[in-house]
């Protein structure tokens, strides 16, 4: 099966009101080219589930998010994501704020077809107070109360991988695949952009196959977009773009998201990349030191 498609074909599968999971973590390996394609479309009223970075900030600022399921939104070196803060502080954003690990459990429950997974995470905190849809339950085995973390079922997941083949075998060669395997499994449709399209033979080497974290049956579409994680990182290929994130954050103080989009978004990814210095410039961005 050939799952290759373009970014616009991929985003055409996202309908108004859908629940969309976004892989990566903060400013790291976000499917930003697919997020930009959403910004070029007129899709709206999304429920977004993410370990959030600028993906969440941009979609919120552009008015595409009805509800956000999150544990944090951060650009790491800029700890507080400026457009996410504006969205929260203007009061227009419905939220389901949960613990990082609860999000993992919710994705696992969805992937495994379970209605919930019991946990003690969230007990005693305002996670429970502010999320009436998260129920406390009795255990058949002890006298304690437990949080029943509901399944976070996703209509669509967007993920960026280092490499993929046309059949949807996806490789994340960087140090961490974060929760992307669970985003892939929790979604009805999983759309994966990749920095490099490879032949299936590439994975014959056990060294390469070891960095494939979900089966191809969980991948619905493969969208080859070299540099497609920019301005987030795609370690080991490139780091995150510090000056670009600074300019993005500055736009939240002056000019607003429209000025940022006018400056960078362009009509397609080729135009975006020419505006940020080209693929070679993206690929030469130094990896961060933690």
């Amino acid at each position: 099966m050939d799952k290759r498609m373009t970014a616009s074909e991929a985003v055409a599968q996202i309908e108004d009101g859908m629940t969309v999971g976004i892989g990566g973590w903060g400013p790291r390996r976000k499917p930003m080219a697919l997020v930009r394609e959403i910004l070029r479309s007129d899709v709206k009223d999304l429920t977004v589930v993410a370990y959030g970075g600028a993906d969440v900030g941009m979609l919120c600022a552009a008015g595409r998010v009805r509800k956000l399921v999150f544990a944090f939104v951060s650009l790491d070196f800029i700890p507080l994501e400026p457009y996410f803060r504006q969205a929260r502080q203007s009061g227009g954003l419905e939220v389901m704020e949960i613990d990082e690990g609860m999000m993992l459990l919710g994705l696992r429950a969805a992937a495994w077809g379970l209605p919930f997974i019991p946990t003690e995470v969230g007990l005693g905190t305002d996670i429970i107070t502010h999320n009436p849809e998260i129920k406390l339950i009795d255990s058949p085995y002890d006298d304690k109360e437990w949080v029943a973390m509901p399944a976070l079922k996703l209509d669509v997941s967007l993920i960026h991988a280092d490499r993929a083949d046309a059949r949807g075998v996806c490789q994340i060669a960087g140090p961490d695949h974060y929760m992307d395997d669970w985003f892939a499994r929790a979604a009805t449709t999983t759309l994966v952009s990749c920095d490099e399209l490879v032949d299936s033979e590439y994975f014959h080497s056990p060294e390469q196959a070891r960095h494939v974290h979900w089966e191809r049956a969980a991948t619905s579409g493969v969208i080859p977009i070299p540099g497609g994680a920019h301005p987030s990182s795609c370690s080991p290929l490139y780091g995150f773009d510090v000056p670009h994130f600074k300019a993005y954050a500055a736009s939240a103080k002056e000019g607003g998201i429209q000025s940022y989009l006018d400056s960078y978004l362009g009509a397609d990814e080729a135009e975006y990349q020419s505006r940020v210095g080209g693929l070679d410039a993206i690929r030469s961005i130094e990896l961060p030191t933690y």
Partner: protein
Amino acid sequence: MTEYSLAELCIVAASEAFNDDGEVLATGIGVIPRLAASLAMKTSNTDLMMTDSEAFMLSEPNPLGKRDADFEQANESWMGFSRIFDNVWSGKRHAMLGPTQIDRFGQTNTSALGGSYAQPKVMMLGARGFPGNSISHPNSFFVPDHNPRVFMEGECDFVSSVGYNPDRLPRGHQLSDIDIRRVITNLCVMDFGGPDYQIRLRSLHPGVTVEQVQENTGYPVFVPDDVPQTTAPTAEQLAVIAALDPHNQRALQIRGNPPGVPAAGEAQ
């Protein structure tokens, strides 16, 4: 006498929180907590485990900041973020973090400040991993600017982590299940060892008075009869800290980078 900065005093005081932990993952978020955990791993508790803040466990802590091109970190295993939760929920971890608010119960806030929850006046990071950390394993806090906005009157605007609050105690749990270890600030070291888990002064930094701590805390601090001065760093500890922090990031953590012992006539 060896000269040291207030930041270095705090690093040493904070490192003591890990002394008796045994073999657990020490997670220090921020420069001073990370140096504290690293100092403990290098000196007082060499059984501690630590990550590279990315995806590998280390058998030796990494120095902070940019490292030489030929630097090789001492990996001992892969430890991606999903696996961190396997460790967190097993309880074999002690985290030291810097929340925005800490109330009298030791509950903390890292999320919505002021206004309403639907429309906070100031939105911070979000709950992050605080709910899970607080119910799963021991936690300590570092506060670089001890003031009544951090140690606030009343309850946190948003409770990210559980504390010793009887009204929020989950059914079937005991207050003694909650394990808040130390609170290290630019003024003092505290814990929740007072009567009924009241916050308690453990030691005062040089030049700091009990009154100063109380004035800067929005709720009563339990003061034992005998409050010692925070133990000064040794020359050996200072050398280890300097090696772990070659770019001197610690100098930027407390406003003005004051000395550990204030000059005669100056308050801390």
